[in-house]
């Protein structure tokens, strides 16, 4: 049985198709990343899986339970870590966990024990009586995750949990995800950071503009790019002037710019690079740095969409 | 220039909040109209009966004293007598059809004439204006009735007639007749000290009382909107960002307080104009005096708003502190009830309140009909309070942890 299965999932908001015919699955005990830029439809997909939104068409299954037909059974197997902190700031860490534990059906001694365990997992046993409103951002995120783990769900959905936090807390969260997965939990992890997806995932589904445009393991996705090499160039000026010229250079498959950095997919970096320099020189554009990369998920995204991942 | 930029930024934020603006504008207008009702005569129809309805329970309407009292009351311009039995009278009282029930006990005339005690009872709610008025209105004819009885007994004693009862009756009729004649010509004349002619103590317009009170009260509450801007700046850390620019602390304070003053002044001006044009409250009979009071009222309120904005950590605290300020200053300043009705200590403290001074200034213009010279004291006191709150606010502002 798949832990997560999404079949032909669609969501329409008026005329706007936020999710179009999404199909992917996650085996039990694996980490599946949903990778895509902002506005790709990841959060909408997650909302349908967690019962916040009703699909326009299609269905999704959590541990075999349909989210539309058996929502309560599906939710019992599911823990959700929302992107924004969803805690009661005027309750303590412990009080938050106790309340949410009750909402997941835990009671009495079992609840108490589990709350103690979760506090240990998130490393906040010493601060359990402090009001969450007084916590730092990182600490709040830990409690935010802790709530989702209370009822030992089979599946945990984590919606961009590392956005806007410091590197140390980010590292902590990524290690937590691995640990949870090692304990047997299936994790659906949404992110727009490709390095996280690469590090954590058994499978990756890439979403863009409401569609799942690619699905597979990291290696399978990279293979889609073939022998293409990625070159990152930094210029001393805006790239708009030079891009049209570089697109005409033979051997350049795809080229795009973001935040002053130009990313190009080429067949042979040794052969193409001099032509790029020559064209730049003629246009009075100076290349200040060159970086030749092995293909990665960003390369894949660029290959599939013609746009950089962070667009 | 940067002060003005900051002020305009604050004002644009305030004006974008349409619902709060509606609250600032609509609420005081609605309140003014409503409270004006509470002070005006019940209707302006000259043909309407404005007398206070009184039920009279009289078991012996033909008895001498009963008849005399009834005749006197029925001739009154202020009381409308309705004769009923006790059950109907109490029912009418509970329903509000009458404002009071006068119970004349059985044997009243006989007992009093014989020099024994007998008591007339007025059943009425003395906490209401009508109840109190009824009590006062009945006291004079009752006192005069008893006086006539006493005189008649003295006369009968002195004469020592064979039939003292007959003599006493005759003396009573004579004395009572004299009282009725005396009552026709009031010995006391009352007049309100207004600079211009007016027909009643409101200065001719019931809104003269409610309008300034609501104006002062809502000027205080209006600072919620402006104080919240400062709190939002602290929370969003844009205030801290301002401090990192080369703008000085006093410039930041000045920019904010100018915005608060503008809002308060605009609200006050709007209420003044509404009062002037719609309710015919003549604020503009002394435009400069009204302007001075409005300006210093705005300065006091905005400096208090600044203090609240500096102290409060959250929007809800702003609302709470503003409401407490509004209640305290409104109640103690005489906007809810006249201070003359309050206890001595309360009234003494109340008169020192800036709200009381604002009311005083406005009432001098509206009700007393006085001129510029009558508002200087109010303007001075409001300025002192404004300065005091401002100093406190600046001192506290410098201690905000950035």
């Amino acid at each position, binding site marked *: 049985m798949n832990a997560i299965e999404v079949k032909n999932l669609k969501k329409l908001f008026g005329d706007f198709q936020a999710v179009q015919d999404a199909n992917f699955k996650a085996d039990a005990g694996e980490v599946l990343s949903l990778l895509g830029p902002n506005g790709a439809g990841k959060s909408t997909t997650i909302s349908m899986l967690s019962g916040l939104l009703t699909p326009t068409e299609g269905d999704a299954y959590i541990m075999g339970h349909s989210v539309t037909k058996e929502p309560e059974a599906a939710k019992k197997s599911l823990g959700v870590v929302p992107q924004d902190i969803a805690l009661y700031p005027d309750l303590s860490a412990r009080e938050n966990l106790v309340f949410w534990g009750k909402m997941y059906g835990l009671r009495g001694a079992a609840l108490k024990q589990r709350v103690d365990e979760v506090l240990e997992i998130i490393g906040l046993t010493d601060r359990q009586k402090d009001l969450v409103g007084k916590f730092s951002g990182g600490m709040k995120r830990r409690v935010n995750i802790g709530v989702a783990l209370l009822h030992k769900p089979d599946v945990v959905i984590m919606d961009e949990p590392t956005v806007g936090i410091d590197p140390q807390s980010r590292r902590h969260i990524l290690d937590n995800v691995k640990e949870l997965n090692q304990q047997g939990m299936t994790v659906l992890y949404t992110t727009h950071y490709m390095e996280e997806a690469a590090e954590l995932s058994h499978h990756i589904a890439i979403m863009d503009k409401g569609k799942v445009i690619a699905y597979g393991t990291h290696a399978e996705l990279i293979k889609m790019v073939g022998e293409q090499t990625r070159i990152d160039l930094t210029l001393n000026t805006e790239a708009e002037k030079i891009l049209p010229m570089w697109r005409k250079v033979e051997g350049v498959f795809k080229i795009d710019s973001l935040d002053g950095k130009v990313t190009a997919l080429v067949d042979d970096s040794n052969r193409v690079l001099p032509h790029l320099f020559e064209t730049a020189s003629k246009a009075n554009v100076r290349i200040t740095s060159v970086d030749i990369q092995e293909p990665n998920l960003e390369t894949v995204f660029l290959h599939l969409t013609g746009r950089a991942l962070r667009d | 220039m940067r002060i003005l930029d900051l002020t305009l930024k604050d004002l644009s934020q305030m004006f974008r909040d349409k619902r709060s603006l509606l609250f600032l504008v609509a609420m005081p207008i609605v309140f003014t109209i409503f409270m004006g009702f509470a002070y005006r005569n019940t209707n302006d129809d000259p043909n309407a009966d404005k007398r206070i309805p009184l039920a009279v329970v009289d078991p012996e309407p033909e008895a001498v004293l009963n008849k005399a009292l009834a005749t006197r009351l029925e001739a009154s311009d202020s009381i409308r007598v309705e004769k009923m039995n006790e059950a109907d009278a109490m029912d009418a009282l509970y329903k509000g059809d009458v404002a009071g029930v006068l119970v004349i006990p059985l044997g009243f005339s006989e007992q009093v004439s014989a020099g024994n005690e007998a008591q007339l009872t007025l059943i009425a709610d003395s906490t209401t204006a009508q109840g109190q008025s009824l009590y006062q209105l009945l006291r004079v004819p009752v006192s005069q009735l008893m006086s006539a009885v006493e005189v008649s007994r003295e006369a009968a004693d002195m004469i020592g007639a064979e039939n003292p009862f007959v003599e006493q009756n005759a003396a009573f009729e004579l004395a009572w007749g004299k009282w009725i004649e005396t009552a026709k010509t009031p010995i006391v004349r009352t007049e309100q000290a207004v600079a211009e002619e007016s027909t009643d103590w409101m200065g001719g317009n019931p809104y003269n009382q409610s309008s300034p009170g609501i104006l002062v009260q809502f000027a205080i509450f209006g600072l919620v909107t402006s104080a919240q801007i400062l709190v939002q700046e602290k929370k969003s850390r844009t205030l801290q960002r301002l401090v990192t620019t080369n703008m000085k602390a006093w410039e930041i304070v000045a920019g904010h307080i100018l915005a608060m003053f503008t809002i308060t002044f605009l609200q006050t001006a709007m209420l003044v104009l509404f009062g002037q044009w719609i309710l015919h409250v003549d604020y503009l009979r002394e435009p400069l005096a009204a302007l001075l009071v409005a300006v210093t009222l705005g300065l006091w309120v905005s400096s208090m708003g600044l203090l609240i904005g500096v102290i409060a950590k959250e929007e809800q605290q702003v*609302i709470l502190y503003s409401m407490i300020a509004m209640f305290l200053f409104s109640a103690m300043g005489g906007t809810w009830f006249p201070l003359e009705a309050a206890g001595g200590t309360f009234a003494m403290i109340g008169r020192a309140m800036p709200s009381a001074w604002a009311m005083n200034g406005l009432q001098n213009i509206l009700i007393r009909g006085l001129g510029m010279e009558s508002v200087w004291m109010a303007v001075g006191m409001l300025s002192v309070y404004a300065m005091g709150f401002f100093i406190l606010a600046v001192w506290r502002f410098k201690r905000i942890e950035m």
Partner: protein
Amino acid sequence: MKIIDMVLKDLTRSFRSAFAIGMMVVAPLMLTGLIYFAFGGMSGGDVSMTPIKVGVVNADKLPDDSVLETPIGDNIRSMFFDESVQSWIVASDYVDEETARAAVNAQEIGVAVIIPQNFSESYLSGEQDVQVLIVSDPTLSIGPAVVEDMVTMMIDGVAGGGIAIETIMERLQANGMQPNPVDIPAWVEQYSNWYRDFQRNLFHNPEKAAYVIVAPSAGERETADPIQKMMGLTMAGQMIFFAFFTGAYSMMSILREEEEGTLARLFTTPTDRTSILAGKFVAVFITILLQGIVLMVAGHYAFGIHWGSWDVIALAFTGQIVAATGLGVLLMAFVKSTKQGGPVLGGGLTALGMLGGLFTANMPNALPAAMNIVANFTPQGWVLKAWRMVMDGQPASDLLLPFAVMIGMGVVMFAIGALMFKKRFA
């Protein structure tokens, strides 16, 4: 069970919120306390009002051949300077009407009493247009009324003496007897003694007074003290206003949770949405209940308010809670965010409270009849009506109608609001 968990969670959050506690308990107690501070000391006859500043212009002089020893004007004047009134009247002399009027305008005095020249002589000779003029500050009403009363009583005393003399003389003559002028002072003294005792009983001895005013209540613990009654009505008005505020504010917690993200999180748990909503409604109900109990107990012990007997209190209180819960649910069902909720809370509830008569509870007949009719369309109006009946000592059977209306209104409002919330969230 989960409903109880949610109720407890909401109650915990409410009672930790300084704002909530401030608005639920502190504000109504503070307001009532202010009124108590203003008027409470007057309860039980302890008069401690602001002294009335009176200026007296006494131009009255007697001619050499006057029958009076002292001018009436002197008697009027001395009334205001008497020791017995010094605690509530501060009197001063003024040389003429102009200076007295100027003093009124300058607010140095509140009332000027102007006794014209030859007042005594003109009065005794029966001149029609002789009058004592009272000029008052137009913003005052109590002081001028008191002064007018005092002057009227004094002059009535003089008039009564005159009527006594005339009546006795005329009756003596009618009986063929010759009045002896030597006896006149004795008549006057007898009458004056009677008049003094009569007035004293009227104001200070209600058991012996010829005329008394009593409150219309019929209960065992009726209070004849008007200040007590006023405090009770004030506290009731505050309690009602803030009960409705609490209802709406508590219900606003659902909007707060929506904005915090915890409502969405609740929906991701295996807890059905009807239970989530039900938990909110129950929390609102209990919050208002607890608030009401605190205020009633505080009102009794802090301000000495006697609410009434248990059966009528239960009726009024239950109706209040149901009505406030219903209105809170209904109002918040129309609101999309906490930002919108603010003006609804502040403006909407204040307007409804106003229309319901909460702000004019102590002057009910001052409003036109139309306004009293409007009050019947507001739940606050019916709750106030019920509490008035409680304080008037009316029996429980009389409260059944307002009770039924409060429950009916509350249930209908709740039903509409709950349906709207269910449509929105379920």
